[in-house]
């Protein structure tokens, strides 16, 4: 952890000076400090949204250029005809079904409201018309703040025929099949081979475990200084449990495994400066499409690792620098109103990126040429 931080600091020193000359970031930094209260997403959206908007738009334009006309039409909402052609039968079925179903449900539940005093009805307030399209979307009914709107570049392209009534549906298409009667498991538990017990607390008690952990940390020498609180070592505890909670045996084994495993995990978990920089340039290009970043920028890590790194990175100083830079770039464009042509901007972007990042792109090992946007 600490090592990561220190590399990040180095990164800052290398990256910042050139940009600092262009614009004094103190106001930005101040602002940045104040939005602690806001949600994570706001900060995220500022950073990622800005960095990615123009690129996303460009790549979309490129895609559209190659698209067949029908797809393009569909993309822009001329989907009515298409949809009807595609699924007239389904439409019929669906509606029939839903009418039937809602009838049954209504019939069933009608009597009770009448028995109930109307007082409840009044308190109940406006009961919404349930077959609104909005009710199919969880997100659309949320309080959408400005920056989220930017994010949501999807268009609500729901098909007409799918706007079924929002009632609980009844029929074999909807309910689960309930197993009849009760049963015993057979000799073998269905999934016994697939799981892994990592720790079982009932075998040992607090003091002994703590003593073990103390001894274990003396062996493993974790990178973080041990404070007053004893930190748990997952690996050591797992080993203890594997040894049938025999502390001595576990310690003995720990001593044997430590040299190799410690260095292994260090190499695995620590990101090199190059990986970090490639990751950042990936975020600039692809936003939070971690799969694309993995494919084009950081092939040495899995997509899962990228996601994990992202969350640690976004709270680091390194990210603040990154976000400020992105903001500055946007400012720069805003200051040149003649600069609205996307192609110009695209080219300029490419140039500046090539200058700044070409030294980092030499990916050893896989020999892939730097990806073009």
């Amino acid at each position, binding site marked *: 952890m600490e090592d990561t931080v220190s590399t990040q600091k180095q990164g800052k020193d290398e990256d910042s000076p050139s940009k600092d000359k262009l614009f004094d970031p103190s106001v930005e930094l101040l602002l940045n400090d104040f939005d602690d209260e806001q949600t994570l997403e706001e900060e995220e959206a500022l950073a990622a949204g800005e960095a990615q908007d123009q690129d996303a738009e460009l790549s979309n334009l490129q895609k559209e250029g190659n698209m067949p006309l029908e797809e393009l039409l569909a993309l822009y909402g001329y989907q009515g005809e298409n949809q009807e052609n595609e699924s007239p039968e389904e439409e019929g079925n669906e509606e029939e079904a839903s009418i039937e179903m809602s009838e049954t449900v209504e019939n069933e539940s009608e009597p009770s409201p009448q028995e109930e005093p109307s007082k409840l009805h009044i308190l*109940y307030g406006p009961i919404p018309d349930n077959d609104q399209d909005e*009710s199919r*979307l969880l997100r659309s009914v949320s309080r959408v703040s400005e920056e989220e709107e930017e*994010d949501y570049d999807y268009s609500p392209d729901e098909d007409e025929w799918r706007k079924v009534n929002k*009632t609980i549906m009844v029929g074999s298409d909807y309910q689960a099949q309930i197993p009849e009667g009760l049963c015993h498991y057979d000799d073998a538990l269905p999934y*016994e081979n697939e799981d892994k017990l990592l720790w079982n607390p009932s075998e040992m008690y607090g003091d002994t475990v703590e003593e073990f952990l103390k001894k274990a940390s003396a062996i493993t020498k974790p990178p973080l200084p041990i404070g007053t609180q004893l930190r*748990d070592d997952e690996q050591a505890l797992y080993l203890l449990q594997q040894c*049938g909670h025999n502390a001595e045996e576990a310690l003995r084994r720990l001593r044997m495994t430590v040299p190799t495993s410690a260095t292994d995990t260090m190499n695995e978990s620590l990101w090199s400066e190059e990986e970090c920089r490639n990751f950042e340039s990936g975020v600039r290009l692809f936003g939070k499409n971690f799969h694309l970043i993995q494919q084009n920028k950081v092939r040495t890590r899995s997509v*899962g690792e990228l996601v994990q790194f992202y969350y640690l990175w976004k709270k680091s100083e390194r990210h603040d620098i990154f976000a400020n830079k992105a903001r500055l770039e946007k400012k720069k464009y805003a200051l040149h109103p003649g600069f609205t042509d996307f192609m110009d901007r695209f080219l300029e972007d490419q140039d500046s990126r090539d200058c700044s990042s070409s030294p980092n792109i030499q990916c050893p090992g896989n020999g892939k040429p730097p990806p073009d946007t």
Partner: protein
Amino acid sequence: MTKQKVSYFFNPDVGNFHYGTGHPMKPHRLSVIHSLILNYGLHKHMQIYRPYKASAHDMCRFHSDEYIDFLQKVTPQNIQAFTKHLSHYNVGDDCPVFYGLFDFCSMYTGASLEGAMKLNNHDCDIAINWSGGLHHAKKFEASGFCYVNDIVIGILELLKYHPRVLYIDIDVHHGDGVQEAFYLTDRVMTVSFHKYGNYFFPGTGDMYEIGAESGRYYSVNVPLKEGIDDGSYWQVFKPVISAVMEFYQPTAIVLQCGADSLANDRLGCFSLSTKGHGECVKFVKNLNVPTLVVGGGGYTLRNVARCWTYETSLLVDEQISNELPFTEYLEFFAPDFTLHPEVVTRQENANSKQYLEAITKYTYDNLKMCQHSPSVQMHDVPGPAISEDEKMKEEEDPDVRISQDLEDKMVEAKNEFYDGDKDNDKDDSKT
């Protein structure tokens, strides 16, 4: 009351998925929670499992084959080939196709399924799977960020052993997927407390939805309005669940702890504090019925993490300090770095006392009907399942390599020092 045995199911990879830019559902919250749990030392009080990953076959116990087949095949790369299916299965908008989608589903579903199985087998009294609780998924379509309904699949497993399973849902959204799955049966009672009205997602959950056919009166809905606070929530939750216990007498419970009912959630509109939310969990725990606890919604990452960490501590009966321990995610909890920050909300409580009383009475009257309902029979509860020891003895073929799980259990014997192939002192082992 003897101490309940708690098992905790967590796949270390389940947090490393991403729904896409701007999507409020962030699976990485699960990694943050796990890190908090470890650093609070809570794992020392539970059995920790790296769970089974559910297969397509397991998912098809509830979902349609075609739908699961689609989930298995679709990726962001080949999505073009599936354009027709996307809208059919409601995939794309709220439920995007992201990298690793099927893996994600099989991880959280496997954990719930295994939790249910361990409960059936009396391996534990409480099973926790914070990655589960995706209650909107329908039999043949995705909905509200949910693709596979792990709750329904978990309940189906519980039904193998339990005549009556109770489902309680404290997510701010209606638990429509689970309610629909069990709408016609009296073997599962679904009780959901949620915001209802003004087109709030998913649009169902009216108090008049009470179930149908043999399931009539076995769906309980408690619609609430925005801004409900701890006091008001408790005023409804306690009497309703008490009545449910009295009239239904479930033999197992599944509790969905959606944390979007907390104040200041990005999508929710209630004003609960982590303590108020946790109070419900504590109440259910103290009913002393085998319980599967799952997660659910929750879109303000730091609050979800606080909430479920706190609730884990309640479930294992350990007090934890208000000051958060150091974790790699500490910065997310700025500026207070505490477990229970003060709740500041501009949302006004729109639930009047009269409204809450009326809705509680309405629910109570309906529940009374269950008592007289002829369809509740006293089922035979089966004897205890095969114990772990027996299982070991029944290990048949010595030539077949034994599983990791069994191996782990075998070494639990305290006087056994030999430990499998990798043991270095094989020669002097006393076989």
